[in-house]
């Protein structure tokens, strides 16, 4: 039986880096190629030696698919393609291809700055890697090779995020990447058609949570910023160049406009402009509201948000500053933090994940005294808030997606084991499908039913309909007879007559014959008469004819009697039947072998 194999190298029962190997119909596909930012050695990348043992990745993998630009989904890509060596195709959506190198570059820059960093990719490697990327549009079916095709669906989550359908022959897998089933301020909700894949691989970050609406979190965020600014404090929001930053900018911009606030908002990085450029360029990927208002006012052209100069940090009065990098471990955000940390009027809002060892991580863990360079300590008096804005589907959303796609099997990744367990039970109960949750390094095998699509001729279908019975129904299979023609890689079911005609063949009738010897003292004609009577009594529901030329006919079976002059009592009964009546024919031969009733 054909099967689909799934082996996570990352994201199997964890929320680290995603990297999932799928083997379907003889094709090997890598879904995402993420990096773990918490390490500063090779442990940050998936161990690709498990993929191939000795051969090159290019020989093993048919393609790599990247779901979206977050580094835990694409961060190991340049390492894999340029340092380990992979020359095959890499697929991602157009926005992802545009934004991915910005984030990779951003992370490279903050990484090479650190001491003790080894084995990291360079700018040139990022560029060379991006040249191997084949960008694709939503709902565009891309033929990777003759057998393998992929198709992207909208996933929400971040700009350009996509779910991917992977199809080889009649087998298919859908990989969700990260997705969001409720529209947010600038992105729409994920959508997929009823594609009934053999397997749906879904993220399960919020497997047990029914999240408070994102709107609540946003209101909370705005309230806190507003309060701080009102009392004359300064707000620092460490961000990475792209992603959450834009989301928060839109939020503040509209709020400032509505409340007519005067405190300045600054953005500290040179990358914003570029980032905003992409949000404008890929406006079709944002949600309906943004697209509608785009004509009157572009959401991404900010009136209140201005470029930051480092001298502004000392200016008196309230202000809001977005500064990079997002984990407060270097550069401008750290410098501003040091200046503002001592004042309890100020506030720090951390909108994203912080790696262990960074100042951001320490502060989120509640440390109030930080050791800075040169053994000086820094008292953290400002208020610290953590605000998660990440847009993942919650349990309800995941169930909703299952209803949408109607998969035959389900596999959970990108979540914590305990929470997955809960969701797995729920899914198995509600949908009566198997749900798997392999750990990293473990392979799940899903047996699929080979289904071979066949075209059926209209005539045959009409004839079948004419015979009566229920109308054709996808859910109620029924038997049909016809001739299967395999020609030019296509399969067609037609009536035998049509097949003969099409292929220019003449029909051959196959008949079976058999001789049965019988001792019977009567004349040949009488013997035949006795056979006729005997069959009449045995085969009551059959039409049996006694033809004057000396034959008895039952259905297609012809019976004759002969005898030789030397032995007139030894009758030879000849039976002949066509292959349709094979059963009846052999029954009659057995019956006659047993003799006639006296």
């Amino acid at each position, binding site marked *: 039986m054909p099967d689909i194999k799934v*082996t996570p190298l990352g994201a199997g029962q964890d*929320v*680290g880096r995603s990297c999932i190997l799928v083997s379907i119909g003889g094709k090997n596909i890598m879904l995402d190629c993420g990096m*773990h*930012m*918490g*390490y*500063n050695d090779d442990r940050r990348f998936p161990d690709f030696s*498990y993929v191939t*043992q*000795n051969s090159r990745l290019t020989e093993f993998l048919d393609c790599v698919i990247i779901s979206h630009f*977050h*580094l*835990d989904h694409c961060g190991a890509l340049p390492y894999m393609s340029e340092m380990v060596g992979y*020359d095959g195709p890499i697929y991602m959506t157009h926005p992802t291809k545009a934004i991915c190198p910005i984030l990779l*570059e951003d992370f490279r*820059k903050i990484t090479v*700055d*650190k001491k*003790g960093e080894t084995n990291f990719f360079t700018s040139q490697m990022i*560029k060379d890697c*991006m*040249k191997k990327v084949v960008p694709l549009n939503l709902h565009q079916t891309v033929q990777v*090779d*003759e057998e393998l095709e992929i198709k992207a669906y909208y996933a929400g989550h971040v700009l350009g995020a996509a779910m991917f359908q992977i199809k080889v022959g009649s087998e298919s897998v859908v990989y969700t990447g*990260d997705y969001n089933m409720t529209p947010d301020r600038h992105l729409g909700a994920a959508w997929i058609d009823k594609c009934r894949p053999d397997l749906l691989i879904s993220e399960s970050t*919020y497997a047990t*949570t029914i999240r408070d609406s994102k709107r609540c979190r946003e209101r909370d965020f705005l309230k806190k910023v507003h309060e701080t600014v009102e009392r004359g404090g300064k707000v620092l929001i460490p961000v990475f160049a792209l992603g959450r930053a834009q989301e928060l900018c839109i939020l503040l911009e509209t709020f400032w406009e509505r409340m007519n606030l005067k405190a300045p908002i600054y953005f500290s990085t*040179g*990358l914003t*402009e*570029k980032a905003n450029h992409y949000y404008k360029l890929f406006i079709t990927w944002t949600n309906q509201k943004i697209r509608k208002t785009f004509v009157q006012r572009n959401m991404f052209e900010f009136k209140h948000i201005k470029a930051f100069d*480092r*001298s502004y940090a000392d200016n008196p009065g309230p202000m809001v500053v977005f500064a990079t990098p997002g984990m407060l471990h*270097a*550069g401008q955000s*750290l*410098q501003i933090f040091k200046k503002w940390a001592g004042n309890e009027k100020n506030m720090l809002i951390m909108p*994203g*994940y912080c790696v*262990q*060892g*960074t100042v951001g*991580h*320490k502060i*989120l*863990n*509640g*440390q109030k005294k930080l050791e800075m*360079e*040169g053994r000086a300590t820094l008292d953290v008096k400002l208020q610290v808030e*953590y605000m998660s*804005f*990440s847009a993942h589907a919650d349990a309800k959303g995941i169930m909703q997606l299952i209803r949408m796609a109607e998969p035959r099997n389900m596999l959970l990744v990108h979540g*914590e084991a305990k929470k997955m367990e809960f969701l797995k039970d729920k899914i198995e109960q509600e949908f009566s499908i198997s749900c798997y949750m392999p*750990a*990293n*390094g*473990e*392979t799940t095998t899903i047996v699929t039913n080979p289904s071979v699509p066949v075209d059926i001729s209209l005539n045959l279908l009409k004839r079948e309909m004419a015979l009566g019975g229920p109308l054709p129904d996808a859910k109620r299979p029924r038997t049909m007879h016809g001739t299967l023609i395999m020609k030019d890689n296509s399969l067609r079911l037609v009536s035998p007559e049509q097949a003969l005609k099409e292929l220019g063949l003449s029909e051959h009738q196959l008949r079976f014959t058999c001789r049965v010897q019988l001792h019977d003292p009567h004349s040949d004609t009488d013997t035949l008469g006795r056979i006729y009577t005997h069959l009449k009594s045995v085969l009551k529901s059959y039409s049996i004819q006694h033809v004057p030329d000396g034959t008895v006919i039952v259905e297609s079976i012809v019976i004759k009697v002969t005898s030789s002059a030397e032995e007139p009592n030894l009758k030879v009964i000849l039976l002949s039947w066509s292959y349709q009546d094979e059963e009846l024919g052999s029954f009659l031969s057995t019956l006659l072998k047993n003799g006639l009733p006296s």
Partner: protein
Amino acid sequence: MDSDCLSLLPAVCLVLADPQQSPPDDTSLEKLLDWFKELHIQSNGQVLLQHQPCLLEFISSVCTSKTTDPAIISFTLKLTGLLAATKQGFHLLEEGGLLLCAFEREACYVCDIWEDASVRSGWLQGLLNMLKHQNALDFIRGNGLIKVVLQLQNDRSLFVASLANQLLVHILNFLTSSNMTNGSDAVGSSVSSLRSDWVSVSSEIMNAVVEALRSEDHPRVLLGLRLLSLVLFQCGEPIRSTLWKDVLVPLEVLINRGSESLTQTLMTVLQAAVRTPLLGQSEYKVEELLEAMLGHGNRKECFQCAALVVKLEKCPEISKRKATGIILLPLQCVSTQPQTEVETNLVLNEQLSQKASCISLLMQSLSSLAELAHTKYLFDDISIHSITSSVVLLLRMCSGHCPSSLLHINASIHLIGCCKVQRCGLDTLGPYHKCKDILITCYMGDHVCSADLFPVLEKRMWDLRWDVRDSTLEFITQLTVTGFTEALHTSGMVSVLLSSLADTEGYVRASAVAAVGEAVTASFHQAALERNSNLLEKALTQMMIVLSQDTEGFPRRAVVKAFTSWLKGSHPVTALDSSLSSVLSLGGNDFDWEVKMHTLELAEVLMEKTLTCCPYMQNVDFSEKTCLTQTLSRLKDFGLFDLLFNSLFDCDRPVCEKACALLVRLRTLTAETADLDHSALVLNVCGNRWGDEVQRRYLKKQRAKASACATDGILDLNDMQRMLLLSSDHVVNSPQSLMEDILSAAQESEENIVDCY
């Protein structure tokens, strides 16, 4: 540092052992183990265990608790193994019954927690850590743990299975290491030279390999082969030859069966065997097996084998020759006249007639040839000319050319537009030829003429895809380097390059900057600048625009790099001088710290040039100080000091570090020259960002002006440099900080919901 850490250890142990606490950040435990490993290397386990009784308590409480998180159990097993790696540590743990408690066989199976792959992997890693002395091996043997390891070799988790293999090899290796009673490494010495109670260990493992190879179960055979190759790679005698003798028969059966899915793994085994003294001894049949693998080029997997054989460093010449022949077959078959031998190769013909197999076969051929050329293993009697012309023909077929007499029409159809083969073909040609001629031949067909090349390149420059435009620019830069400058100018390509400086894509602008930079440099070399003086002028203007206005870092970085390479060039161009101060000032104030770094590198070159070009430097006479003063004041005019002092207080460490190093160098130089005329070198401190910093930090007396040298004195540069070099790792990697993080995370009750970058 370590004593601070050790004082935190008891608290950390308590937190980790507490089943109520959720385990810390997934990297923290790994990093904590890293620290223990370091400690272990520095001292030994005994000291640690004796002085830190909390560790014993921790291990004991984790092992006896039924509710602990799998991550913590896995960590504990690894740690226990690490602490038991010394005899003293081992005894301490054994006395307390902790070793059995952690590793015993029954403990493994009864608990549900064993279902978790991380626990199994921790168990194996623990044993692997521990196996440094005989007692550890006796412990493993005496408690029947080898069986468990052999079972784990079959584990459903790739990670666990691979670790089990490593442990088995480590055990075998350990048996034969210096602990062995008879330390001979001669091939053929027998296992009986091992300690008698250890013979059973080695035979248990080796029997498992033999059985696996005999098995009909495909995954099991694979596992056996993997272990076998690991043993061959890592183990010495007598294990190696004993095992080889045992597996020889099943191995021959497997090879002769010719299963495609085993080819790769079988080759790995042979590859390992070839590197050992087993090669060359007829009874071990290594050469025979290699021959059998290669067959006669008439099996599908032969090509893959041949590709692997040509990579072997130590390989019998006969096999290598045969493999080379097989490697060449597909290439010959596609690109040359029909040959009888090739014609009759049905397998090859079939492979070439299908697109996917045709392309992969040719790519394998090409990359193996490239490999051969690199390692200079190609035999003399093979015509390099015929190889290169075949490859060139192949490349032309990729661009749609169809030779009239072809054996494989199908193959030529498959090749049209096939980038994979094109790329691979070019890589192959590289080592065989001067690349550029071939490149041109490929692109232009028969007309080897650079004048025809540029229209093609120009067309590619207007491609919609940025990657195509960028690669074309990179190619043009290469051409310029290799001496096509003249043609570049006459063909009008330069104006195309200049217009590319305004491309919509940052990557392309950066490559355009590099190409223009190279074109200008090449013009200097050819002393043809007068003719192209226009070029320099235009280039300078546009590059300054890029540096001051471009929204992306790459193009700005490229501009500064171009200036650096111009300045480094042997032909000093006075026209540059006027732009230099702008470059230093713009580059020094950039958002991107890497632009700043490149600017500092430019400053470094400027310093070198200016200081060494001083005509009187060699003469130690009165004019020396005048000269230096003049030079310094010239540097000041360029804005070099503003750049250096500004960068000294930058928020990015690498920038500060570089600036500091440059200032120290300047100071050394000025200090060597006594009686410098300070008044001639007055910097205006006021109104400068760095000036404010200097004033704030060090000048309590208000002083409006300071000389560069005096400022050097005011700032303790040495101390700054030391600080910058020492600390300032923005992500704190110290174990102390790690432990503090674990402790504070435990106090923080609110869970921060997982989020991503």
